[in-house]
C-alpha cells in the first residue's frame, strides 16, 4: 500500500476531511461535526485502508438518497437554507463516496466537491476561524490537485506500466513541483489580493436578491421578541458580536469601563400570553430610507441643547436585521448600499437582508429629550401585579392617577418599582417554567422571585403599564468590556440584555434597568486571568480580521489605492449607481430588472437554440449512422449475422467489468489483453484469443466458423473460471 495511487488516495482523503471540518466550522453546527468527522475518520479503516473493503453499492446509494431527500426537504421548508442544504448534500455525498470504490475520475470529482463545499462554507460564514481553516485547506487542496493530475496522467495514459511508488521519483522532480506549486499559490494569492482591493465595492449589491451573504451565525443571546416562561439557560457564550467606539462631538474617544452602554435592538411594546413583541401599530410606522455608502441620512432633528455622540459600530456577525444603537439616534451612516427601516415611534432600526457591509456609524443624543410619542397598550389593569405596583407607588408617595403625575413623578414612581425589584429579587440565568395557566411575570414576582434580565424588564414594564406609566421592553446588548488599546467596547453574545424604557412625558423616554446591578455586573464581567489573556489575543486577531477583511469597504479601499486620479472609476461608479438606484416601489432597481429579464431572455433563447442545435446534430448523426448501416448491410449482408456471432465478446467484457478489470473504452482490446498480462498470464491469453476472434469477425468481416465459435465459447468459459478463481483468491487473502 505504498504506490503513488495509495499516496494520492490518502491526500484526497485528507483534503476531504479538512474541507468537511472547514464547513462544520463555518456552519457552527457541532452536531454536524460530531457526526460527519467520525464518519470521515472511520472511512479509512473501513473502506480505504489496506484492510478495508468498499461498502456494498446499495448502502452507499441509500446514504446518498437520504442526504438528497433531506436537502430537498430542507429547501422546501425553508428556501433561505438553500446554500446550507446544498452544502450539506455535498458533504454527505463526499462522506458516502469515501466508503465506495474510487476510480481515477472519482478522485477528481471528490476534490471538486470538496472545493464546492468550501465555497459553501464561504457563503455561510465569515468568521476568523473559517479564515484560519482556509489557510490550511488551500495549500493542501492545491497540492492534492496537482499530484492528482500527475498521478491520473500516469494511470490513464500509461495503464500498462508497472505501478510506481512515487509519481515523482526523483528529488528534483519533487522540489520542482514544490517550487511550482508554491509559485502558483503565491501568484494566485497575489491575484486574489489584487482583485480584492481593486474591485469597487457597493456597486450591484443585492441586484439578484438576498443571495451570497453568510446565512447562519445567528446569535442566541439576542432575540427580537421576549418569550417568558420557558425553562433553560441564557447563553454565556463569549463569542464577540460587535465592536463599538464611542466618540463625542469633537471626535474624542469617551468610552470607558465605567460607562457601560445599552445598545438597543428590538423595541417590544405588546405583551400577550407571556410574550413581548412589537405591536403592529409600531410596525406600520416604519419608514424606509435608502443609504449609499458613506452618505449620512438624518431621520430626526437633534436638539441643539443636548450634546451629541457618535457610535462607530462594527458588527462582527450579522445576528439578524437589527442595527444596534443607544437611545436616541438621529442620523445614520452606512458603508454599503442598503435599505433601512426606521421606526418613527420607537426608533428601532433594521436593515433587512444581505451579509457583508457590517460597519455603520450612528449619531445619538444621550439625553432622553425629544423622542417620538408612543402609547403602549395598558396591561395588568387589575390583579396581583396591579396591586403590587399600586402599593409600591403609593408607598413612595407618588400620585396614582396618571393625569396628576409630572415627568418627575413618573420617573420617581418608576424608580420606586425598580428599587423594589433590586431589593427583593434574585438574578439568575437558569429558569424554571411556570405552572399551567400561570403568567410568567406573576410567577417571577410572587412565587419564584428569581429570574434573568428579561423577567426583570418584563416585570418592571408590566408594573409600570398597570399603573398608567408608558413602558416597553428593549432587547439588545450591554457593552461593558472596554479595551483601552483599541478604544473600543467589545460586545459578546453573553452581553445580550433586556431592559425597560419608560416615557416620562410626551415622547420623552428614559432607559431603566431593573436587573440588580451587582448581579448584572457579575454576569457581564469581562473574562480575567490567563484565559482572558488568550481570549484578548484572539479577540485582537479577530478584530483585525473583521476590520481588514470582513468589513473591508469602499472607504478602506480608496484609502489603500488612493483617489482615482483620472476620475474614470468615479465616473463609472456614478453612472452605474445612477443607473442602478432608480427602483420600483419596494422592489429591485428598474434597470437591473430590465437587464435581468434581458439576460434571462437571452439565456433562455440561447439555451433553447443550443438544445435545438444539439438535437439536430444528434438526429443528423443518427440518420447518417442509419444510412451508413443500411449501406453497409446492402454491401455486406452478413453484417447482422456477424454481429450476432460476436456476443461472446460482450460477455467477456461484462465478466471483466464485474471482476474490476473493465476494459477502458479508449483502449483497444488487444492492448487491454497486453495490460492484463501483468495481472495474470492465463487471463490475458484468454482475452487475447477472444480479441483475435472478435477482430476476425469485426474487422475481417467474415463469419466465424463453427469451430471458431466453439473455441470462443470455450475460451469465454475459461475466462470466467479464471476470474472466479482470482476473486476467490483475493477473498481468501483479504480474509487472512
Amino acid at each position, binding site marked *: 500500500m505504498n504506490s503513488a495511487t495509495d499516496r494520492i488516495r490518502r491526500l484526497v482523503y485528507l483534503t476531504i476531511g479538512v474541507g468537511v471540518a472547514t464547513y462544520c466550522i463555518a456552519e457552527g453546527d457541532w452536531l454536524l461535526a460530531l457526526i460527519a468527522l467520525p464518519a470521515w475518520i472511520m472511512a479509512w479503516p473501513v473502506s480505504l485502508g489496506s484492510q478495508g473493503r468498499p461498502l456494498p453499492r446499495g448502502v452507499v446509494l441509500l446514504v446518498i438518497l437520504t442526504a438528497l431527500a433531506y436537502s430537498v426537504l430542507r429547501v422546501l421548508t425553508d428556501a433561505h437554507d438553500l446554500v446550507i442544504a446544498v452544502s450539506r448534500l455535498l458533504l454527505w455525498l463526499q462522506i458516502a463516496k469515501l466508503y465506495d470504490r474510487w476510480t481515477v475520475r472519482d478522485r*477528481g470529482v471528490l476534490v*471538486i466537491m470538496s472545493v464546492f463545499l468550501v465555497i459553501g462554507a464561504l457563503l455561510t460564514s465569515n468568521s476568523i476561524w*473559517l479564515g484560519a481553516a482556509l489557510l490550511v485547506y488551500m495549500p493542501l487542496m492545491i497540492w492534492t490537485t496537482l499530484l492528482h*493530475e500527475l498521478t491520473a496522467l500516469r494511470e490513464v495514459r500509461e495503464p500498462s506500466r508497472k505501478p510506481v511508488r512515487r509519481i515523482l521519483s526523483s528529488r528534483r*522532480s519533487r522540489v520542482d513541483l514544490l517550487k511550482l506549486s508554491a509559485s502558483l499559490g503565491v501568484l494566485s494569492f497575489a491575484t*486574489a489580493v489584487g482583485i480584492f482591493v481593486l474591485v469597487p465595492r457597493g456597486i450591484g449589491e443585492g441586484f439578484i*436578491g438576498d443571495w451570497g451573504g*453568510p446565512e447562519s451565525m445567528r446569535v442566541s443571546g439576542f432575540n427580537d421578541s421576549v418569550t417568558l416562561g420557558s425553562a433553560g439557560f441564557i447563553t454565556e457564550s463569549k463569542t464577540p458580536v460587535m465592536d463599538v467606539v464611542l466618540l463625542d462631538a469633537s471626535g474624542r474617544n469617551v468610552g470607558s469601563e465605567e460607562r457601560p452602554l445599552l445598545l438597543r435592538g428590538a423595541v417590544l411594546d405588546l405583551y400577550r400570553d407571556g410574550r413581548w413583541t412589537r405591536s403592529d401599530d409600531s410596525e406600520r410606522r416604519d419608514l424606509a430610507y435608502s443609504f449609499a455608502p458613506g452618505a449620512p441620512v438624518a431621520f430626526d432633528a437633534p436638539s441643539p441643547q443636548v450634546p451629541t455622540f457618535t457610535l462607530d459600530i462594527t458588527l462582527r456577525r450579522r445576528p439578524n436585521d437589527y442595527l444596534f444603537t443607544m437611545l436616541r439616534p438621529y442620523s445614520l451612516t452606512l458603508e454599503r448600499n442598503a435599505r433601512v427601516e426606521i421606526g418613527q415611534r420607537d426608533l428601532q432600526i433594521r436593515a433587512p437582508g444581505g451579509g*457583508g457591509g457590517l460597519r455603520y456609524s450612528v449619531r445619538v443624543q444621550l439625553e432622553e429629550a425629544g423622542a417620538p410619542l408612543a402609547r403602549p397598550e395598558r396591561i395588568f389593569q387589575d390583579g396581583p401585579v396591579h396591586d403590587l405596583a399600586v402599593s409600591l407607588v403609593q408607598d413612595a408617595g407618588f400620585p396614582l392617577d396618571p393625569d396628576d403625575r409630572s415627568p418627575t413623578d413618573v420617573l420617581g414612581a418608576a424608580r420606586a418599582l425598580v428599587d423594589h425589584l433590586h431589593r427583593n429579587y434574585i438574578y439568575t440565568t437558569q429558569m424554571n417554567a411556570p405552572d399551567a395557566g400561570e403568567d410568567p411575570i406573576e410567577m417571577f414576582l410572587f412565587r419564584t422571585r428569581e429570574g434573568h434580565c428579561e423577567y426583570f424588564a418584563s416585570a418592571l414594564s408590566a408594573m409600570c403599564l398597570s399603573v398608567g406609566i408608558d413602558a416597553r421592553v428593549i432587547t439588545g446588548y450591554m457593552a461593558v468590556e472596554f479595551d483601552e488599546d483599541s478604544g473600543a467596547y467589545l460586545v459578546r453574545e453573553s452581553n445580550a440584555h433586556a431592559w425597560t424604557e419608560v416615557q416620562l412625558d410626551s415622547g420623552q423616554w428614559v432607559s431603566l434597568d431593573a436587573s440588580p446591578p451587582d448581579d448584572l455586573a457579575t454576569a457581564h464581567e469581562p473574562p480575567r486571568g490567563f484565559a482572558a489573556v488568550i481570549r484578548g489575543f484572539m479577540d485582537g486577531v479577530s478584530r483585525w480580521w473583521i476590520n481588514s477583511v470582513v468589513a473591508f469597504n469602499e472607504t478602506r479601499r480608496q484609502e489603500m489605492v488612493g483617489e482615482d486620479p483620472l476620475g474614470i472609476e468615479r465616473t463609472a461608479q456614478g453612472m452605474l449607481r445612477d443607473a442602478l438606484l432608480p427602483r420600483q416601489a419596494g422592489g429591485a432597481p428598474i434597470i437591473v430588472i430590465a437587464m435581468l429579464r434581458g439576460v434571462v431572455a437571452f439565456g433562455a433563447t440561447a439555451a433553447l437554440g443550443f438544445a435545438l442545435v444539439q438535437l439536430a446534430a444528434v438526429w443528423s448523426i443518427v440518420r447518417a449512422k442509419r444510412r451508413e448501416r443500411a449501406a453497409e448491410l446492402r454491401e455486406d449482408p452478413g453484417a447482422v449475422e456477424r454481429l450476432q456471432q460476436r456476443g461472446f465478446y460482450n460477455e467477456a467484457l461484462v465478466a471483466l467489468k464485474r471482476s474490476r478489470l473493465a476494459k477502458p473504452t479508449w483502449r483497444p482490446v488487444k492492448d487491454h489483453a497486453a495490460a492484463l498480462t501483468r495481472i495474470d498470464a492465463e487471463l490475458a491469453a484468454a482475452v487475447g484469443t477472444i480479441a483475435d476472434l472478435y477482430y476476425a469477425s469485426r474487422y*475481417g468481416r467474415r463469419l466465424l466458423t463453427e469451430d471458431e465459435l466453439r473455441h470462443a465459447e470455450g475460451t469465454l468459459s475459461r475466462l470466467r473460471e479464471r476470474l472466479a478463481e482470482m476473486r476467490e483468491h483475493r477473498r481468501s487473502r483479504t480474509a487472512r
Partner: protein
Amino acid sequence: MKARRRYHFHGPGALYIGVTLLMGLGAVNSQNNLLFFAFGLALGSILVSGFVSGMALMNLEVRRAPTGVGRVGEPMLFVYRVYNTSRWLPAFGLVIEEGDGRRKAPWRQLLPTIQAALVHVPSRQVRHATAIVTPLARGEAELTHVRIWTTFPFGILKKSVTFVQPGQTLIRPALTPTARQLLDQALSGIGSTERVSQRIGRDAEFYGLREYAPGDPLRHIAWRATARTGELVVREAYAAVSADIVIGLSFADAEAPDAPPDESDERAISVAAGMADVACRRGARVLLISPVGHLRVESRTNGTESNAADPIEDALARLALEGNSSLRKPQSVNHEGGSLIVIHSKSIDPSIAPPGALHISADRAVAPVRPVVAPVSS
C-alpha cells in the same frame, strides 16, 4: 518546426469558469468580502494556469525518434525526445501524441491513437516518452505532426503546441501463428521432391521446450526448466532446411471477379509472411511471387536468419490491393526451381500453378482450425 500555441476549451474548464463567474456574481450581489477573495483566487488560478503552463509548453522541443517497423497485432514502440529549453521553468503533466489534433490523418487506419505521457521535464533537461501501440493493419503510415498538450496545473485549460514532424513507419503484416505447422505440412506434402533435413543442436535456433521423451539426448535437457517444473524438459530447436522455397500469392476468385479486397486477402498475406519468416529462420532461401503488383522478392541472403525475410515482409506490407482491377483475375503463378507453395486467398485454383506445386487456402488457415494443405497431383 513549431506551430503556435493553442488553448482548448474542455468540459472541466467550462465548469470551473462557470463556477468562478457565479462566485463573482455572488460576491458583487452580497458584497461578501470572503467571496470576493475566493473569486479572486479562482480567477487567479485560471490566469496562472493558462500563463504558466502555456509558457512551459513554448519552451519545449519534441522530436520523434526514428520509428522502426511494426507488425500488425504486435506491440510497437514510439519514442519521443522532449527537451525543455527553459532555464528555470519545469514542465509537468505532458501528453505527447501523433497528429495535429484536428484532422483524422490517413495513418489512423493503420494505427490506433498514439499517446505518450511525461510527468515531469526539468528545465534544461531531456526526457524520453514512449508510447506502445498495437498496429491495426499493414501498410505505410505517413506521420506528419507531433502534438504536445497539457492541462496542468488544475486541469482548467488545455494548452497544446504542435510540431511538424514528417516521418514514415512501415507496418508489416501479422505472422500467422500456424505458419510453422503449415510449412512443415507443406514440405512433408512435397515429399520426394524435396530433401528435408532436420537437426536439433546447439547451433540451431531455439524454438521452445517440451516434455522429455524416451530417446531424447541428455544434452538437450533444459536443467533449469526441469528444476523449475519438477519434470524433465528438453530444448527444441527449429528444424533447418536447405532448400529453396517459392511462395506464390494469389488473390484470384473466379466466382466473384469484381469483389473488393477483404479479410481473406489479408489473411493470405499473413500466411505468406509467416511462412517466409519461418522458412528463413530455418535457413532456407525464399522467393515471393505474385501476379498482383508484379511482386517478385527474394529473401536476404547475406543477413542473419532473423531478418532474412525482411524484404519479403516489407514488400507484403506495401502490397496495395485496393484499386487493383486484376486482383481477382486468375493469373499464372509459376517459377522454375525450388518448391512452389501457392497461397490462395480464396478457394484453391490449381490451374494457375504448374503441376507439383503445393496449394494452401488461406481462408481456412488461421488457428484454431487445422490448416488444410492440399497436395495437387497432375
